[in-house]
């Protein structure tokens, strides 16, 4: 056990030191933030897709309430910070449009089929779930494919970017955001069964830590926590290595994206936190005396279905301008209207995905559905 835990510490310190030495202090700090996310999400079992399923299937609202609490904590600090430092910090603001709504709906559906959103996929893969590993590969391919068609999809029509602080100023925007979160929280409590309403201490601690890490991400990177951009960039890097000429594509020819493509992954904000997140989840799994039994083996058809669903997950995340992290968590906590629309559309898709899940995920033994 000592040797295994020592190896985990060496891995964490080695990754952080590597980023510091190779790409400078900001890169090292962002890897540390990502590691923190991985440790908290896996160690304290704070997630996004699972609680969305639990409120529907078990009338258990504790996980969803913890998400809302974390978002409220971030908003209370992030909105004043953004208002006071508009030149240095940016919110996760995107336009509401046809493709965004459709993308969020499909994302919510696919998220339940692969048992995780963007952050959940990284956590599941790092903590040793085969479905998570397949989903990660599919997500990378799908989010890259989404960049190739994003212009066509957004051309179907979208509104201008709307933010709460744009409507009502910084303080008014914060009041609107907190009121919206309170309303969703009240609906959650009303829906939840008695005894499944108030989050346990573990989830309160997790919510506070996730909020603190998200704020650290904003202060260090200048932008909110995100997942999808980094995964799409990795797909683009692999395509480029395979000979694809991405200079001919509108998305990757755009100045900022072209710069990211030609620079090292170690200079990309979301790549750094994604790497840290996956390694953090791996570290928690290896730190435990018992890493847990492997997930039920699925049929070959189910694994193929997971890979396809993950491709759709990545593609739709790109159209929706983010996943549960970039759109829902960071969008709402930095005042973007698209975060709220994303929540409604993705939750509707998630509800459908929950029904389809037993059809797709078939274990090799027994007749039941995947747990």
């Amino acid at each position, binding site marked *: 056990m000592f040797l295994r835990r020592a190896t985990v510490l060496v891995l964490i310190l080695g990754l952080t030191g590597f980023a510091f030495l*190779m*790409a*400078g202090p900001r*890169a090292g700090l962002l890897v540390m933030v990502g590691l923190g996310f991985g440790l908290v999400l896996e160690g304290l079992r704070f997630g996004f897709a699972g609680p969305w399923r639990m409120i529907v299937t078990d009338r258990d609202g504790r996980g969803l309430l913890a998400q809302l609490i974390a978002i409220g904590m971030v908003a209370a600090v992030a909105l004043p910070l953004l208002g006071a430092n508009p030149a240095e910090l940016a919110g996760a603001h995107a336009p509401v449009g046809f493709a965004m709504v459709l993308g969020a709906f499909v994302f919510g559906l696919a998220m339940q089929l692969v048992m995780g959103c963007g952050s959940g996929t990284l956590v599941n*893969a*790092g*903590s*040793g*779930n*085969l479905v*998570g*590993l397949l989903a*990660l*590969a599919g997500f990378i391919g799908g989010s890259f494919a989404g960049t190739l068609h994003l212009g066509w999809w957004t051309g179907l029509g979208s509104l201008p970017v709307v933010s709460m602080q744009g409507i009502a100023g910084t303080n008014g925007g914060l009041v609107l955001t907190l009121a919206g979160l309170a309303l969703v929280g009240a609906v959650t409590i009303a829906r939840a069964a008695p005894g499944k309403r108030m989050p346990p201490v573990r989830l309160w601690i997790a919510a506070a830590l996730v909020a603190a890490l998200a704020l650290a991400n904003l202060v260090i990177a200048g932008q909110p926590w995100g997942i999808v951009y980094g995964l799409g960039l*990795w797909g683009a*890097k*692999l395509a*480029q*290595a395979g000979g694809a000429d991405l200079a001919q594509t509108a998305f990757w020819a755009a100045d900022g994206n072209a710069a990211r493509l*030609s*620079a*090292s*992954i*170690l*200079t990309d904000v979301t790549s750094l936190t994604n*790497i840290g997140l*996956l*390694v953090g*989840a*791996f570290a928690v*799994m*290896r730190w435990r005396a018992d*890493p*847990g*039994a*492997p*997930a*039920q*083996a699925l049929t070959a058809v189910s694994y193929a279905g997971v890979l396809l669903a993950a491709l759709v997950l990545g593609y739709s995340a790109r159209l929706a301008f983010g996943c549960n992290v970039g759109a829902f968590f960071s969008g709402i906590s930095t005042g973007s209207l698209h975060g709220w629309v994303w929540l409604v559309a993705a939750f509707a898709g998630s509800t459908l995905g929950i029904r389809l899940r037993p059809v797709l995920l078939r274990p090799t033994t027994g007749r039941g559905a995947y747990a």
Partner: protein
Amino acid sequence: MSPSRPLIGLAALALIGAILALDLARTGAPDL
């Protein structure tokens, strides 16, 4: 039978490591 969790976790680390190594080979180290 599904592979063990540590083995799958290592495979995930290997995937990330391979992408990072391939990228560093193509772009070189960032300019400090």
